């Protein structure tokens, strides 16, 4: 069954077709979100929100782009929204701490360890993920899609709706910023 047939069946209200769509793309969506939000539980929540958005707006999808491109676009948008939400919560951390009865530290960032990493790279990648997290949104999305999801420049252009030169520039700046950020970290933690 191709994408058009699948989408038509979902629009006609066939739950089994929606299930096929979810099961075909859940891994892709989950991994995209996971690389951006860097938290397993939140990634699951956001991935669900992506498919809820798909369910709600499937009638608006005209098929101008590929289904996977549309899914990547929703996934990156939702993941960035989640990060913004977390940032807002952090800003109000003083108040939430004030009203929290447990003496736990809220909003503390935990180092992210991607489950798909080779064992020897796990420690090194923690700093890289930390540095990715500090990148501006557009650079973060472009770098993640290219280096973790393995998308081609053409696919990134379609997902981000940017020109080739913009994508190239974003990736170049992302790599430069990551190198700077990592160098600073290793300078300060040189043992």
């Amino acid at each position, binding site marked *: 069954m191709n994408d058009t047939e699948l989408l038509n069946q979902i629009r006609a209200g066939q739950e089994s077709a929606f299930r096929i769509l979810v*099961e075909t793309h859940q*891994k892709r969506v989950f*991994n995209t979100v*996971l690389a951006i939000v860097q938290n397993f539980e939140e990634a699951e929540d956001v991935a669900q929100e992506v498919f809820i958005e798909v369910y709600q707006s499937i009638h608006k999808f005209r098929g101008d782009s590929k289904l996977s491109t549309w899914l990547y676009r929703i996934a990156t948008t939702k993941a960035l929204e989640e990060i913004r939400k977390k940032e807002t919560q952090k800003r109000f951390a003083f108040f939430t701490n004030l009203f929290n009865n447990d003496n736990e530290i809220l909003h503390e960032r935990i180092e992210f360890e991607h*489950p798909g*990493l080779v064992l020897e790279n796990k420690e090194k990648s923690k700093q890289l993920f930390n540095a990715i997290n500090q990148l501006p949104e557009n650079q973060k999305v472009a770098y993640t899609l290219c280096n973790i999801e393995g998308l081609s420049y053409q696919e990134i252009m379609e997902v981000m709706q940017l020109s080739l030169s913009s994508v190239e520039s974003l990736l170049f700046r992302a790599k430069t910023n990551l190198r700077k950020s990592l160098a600073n970290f290793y300078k300060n933690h040189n043992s």
Partner: protein
Amino acid sequence: MKEISNIETKVEQAMTSLDGISSAEPKPYFYTRLHARIEHELLTPREVLGWQFKPLYALSAVACLLIINVFTILSLQKTQLSNSEQYNLYDSKGF
């Protein structure tokens, strides 16, 4: 010099640490959980009353209104008093 080279090596190692990364698997029964959430959020009738009708918010709103009213009344009284004092409309006997 050696230190700089050491940092550069670490940076390069970190930059290439994602090479060969494989996809993570979502927890099993993803669709079942998604389906339950869709049913709960989209297909079950929503609460008629929104958050603004929760007792805490409603009471806070009433308290705010009362405070505003008290301030308004107090400030009006003050204005009336100061007007009568300013123009000295009444003498000490009340005429």
